[in-house]
């Protein structure tokens, strides 16, 4: 129910690549917002403590931190929505494909015949939102395909399906 088709919700850049068919759960927007916000918060608390304890003679730290914080706020507001629009995925009978990123973008394709492992994981924050991420690796150090922000049932079902497909592939998939 969460992964709906949005053929028009493509990225702002015209692309030669067609969009992967499916989106992740809309709850992923909140997940990304909160994880970004918490990450920034921890960082700024550390910077604040270090500045207060040892570096308070450096006058330029405060304005620099202010500029940085502005960027952080903008990122927390803008990034999750853009990321949600960009982050699309699909599993065809022959390949798994995912597009990620927000400013920089990346599209990864792994043929199912070459898949080595299929994992799904749930971090603490993800568990809070009932989401999970799925990682499909091949026998290469480059290019594991990760789909982040799937709702838990989809991730589990997909992992089971992909495992079944790869188990049926003969050879060692290298």
């Amino acid at each position, binding site marked *: 129910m969460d992964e709906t088709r949005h053929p028009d919700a493509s990225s702002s*850049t015209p*692309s*030669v*690549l*067609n*969009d*992967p*068919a499916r989106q992740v759960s809309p709850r992923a927007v909140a997940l990304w917002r909160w994880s970004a916000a918490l990450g920034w918060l921890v960082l700024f608390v550390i910077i604040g403590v270090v500045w207060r304890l040892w570096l308070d003679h450096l006058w330029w730290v405060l304005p620099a931190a202010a500029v940085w914080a502005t960027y952080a706020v903008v990122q927390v507001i803008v990034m999750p929505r853009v990321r949600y629009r960009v982050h699309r995925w*699909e599993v*065809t*009978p*022959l*390949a798994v*494909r995912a597009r990620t990123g927000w*400013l*920089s*973008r*990346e*599209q*990864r*394709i*792994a*043929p199912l015949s*070459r898949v080595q492992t299929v994992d799904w994981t749930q971090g603490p924050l993800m568990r809070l939102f009932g989401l999970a991420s799925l990682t499909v690796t*091949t*026998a*290469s*150090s*480059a*290019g594991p*395909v990760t789909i982040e922000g799937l709702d838990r049932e989809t991730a589990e079902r997909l992992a089971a399906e992909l495992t079944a497909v790869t188990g049926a592939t003969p050879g*060692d*998939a*290298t």
Partner: protein
Amino acid sequence: MIPPDDQWRRTDARMIGLTTVTRLGSLAIPVLVVVLRLSEDEDQTWSLRLAVGGAVLAVGSAILSWHATRYRFDATRLQVRRGVLRRTVLTAPLDRIRTVDLEAPLLHRALGLAKVTIGTATGSDSITLDSLSRAQSAELREQLLRWGRGASSALVTEAATTTPDDDTSPLPARENPATRAADLPAVAHPAPRADDGVVLARLDPHWVRYAPTGLLGGAATTVALLAALWGFARDTALPRRVLDALPGSTAAAIVVVLIVVVAAGMLMATGTWVSSWWGATLTREPGGTLHLRRGLMTTSSTTLEEARIRGVRLAEPPIARLLTGASLHALSSGTGSAGEVQLLPTCPRDVATAVGHQVLLPSPGNDPMTVPTRGHGPVARRRLLIRAVIRAAVLTGLVWALASWRDWTPAWPVIVGAQVAWFGLLAELTHRHRGHALDDEHLVVTSGALWRTRVVLQTRGIIGWTIGQTLLQRRAGLATLTAATSAGPGFVTVEDVPLEDAVALVAQATPDVWERVRATV
């Protein structure tokens, strides 16, 4: 011939002597230190006892470890047993054996021995048998590779048929006679010896002219050595004498030092080249393996399963390129350091491309080793030039900071001009050589400015794609395309390729995957 009959065998008894010598060698320095310390106490008997004890220990442990080390193999597995107090038995299924490499360092060679290293597909652990006689090790290699293939593809039963000279050896109890009878036609000839096969390349002594071109590495070592020597001998009279021997003017002194460093670098590079590559022979053996034998002092023998080769890399280092020299490397999954095995040292480029062609065996009409590659266009070039200007600006900034700190007044036009020219030249060279090509079996990627490379990857070896675009690349319509593979470094990258070209490459190189990707939307 070693019959695969499940008997425990020992390594060569000459190993006792060799182990003793190496153990005594490694003991020599600590013993010497202790002896020198003790002799201050004027008690000579102690040092004598210590020396005798050390020798007895060395010989005794050598005999024990030789006695404890045994190996055996039958139709399905190889076992190596070792350890005196803690006995371990390593077992490798024959169908998992990927490589059997022989190596004979100088001492081994003098005694006619060779170390056998057996690599399996199960991980990084390899099994070493140190050492067998040269003939024994060559035969073991032959047997293991043949039996491994036999076990992995149920068809090959070559080794099951007896040849006239091994009638006495027991027949391996291996598979039922029915299957054996079925594939008999394969084998009426005696077991192929290690030197059988088609020779793809043999080192020509004239190629030694390319050896000194590796001088950059040698020169770096020389500089490091000189620096270490300087640190070591700075308090002696040596530096004074060296400085006196140098010409008076700074410019002349720099020239002399440069000449010395370059000459030493050339000498070292030549030494390395000759000692590792002398007598190199690359053969294609029946049964689908490439066999590389090489080395002057230490001889080594490397086997590559052809089914695991995914491509080759042609490398053209800067100075060798002036003589049109190049080296050749095989990209293979699960072997060598970083998945690469060097097949040829720096040698004539034509030879390297011809051998690369032989290794890849492309279908007629495909010539991935020499096919011209398609460049990445003016936008990609502009990006390279902008990056060059940024680099020059950053470096100029650093020089400026240094100059204002040390109160120098350098000739700014010269410095800035030289930097822009240098980085601009590198950018232009990168652009000229950078490109990609595709035939129906291979993806070809050329890159590099001074160190040029051409990577040829078989498209069947591509196990995934990544098309990445940074913000700036998106504005420029360019992308970074990465083809993932299980061989070599694990990926091949095409930098700043126009997005349309990247998509076309993906679509044409792996059409089956791509068609379905398109069809679903």
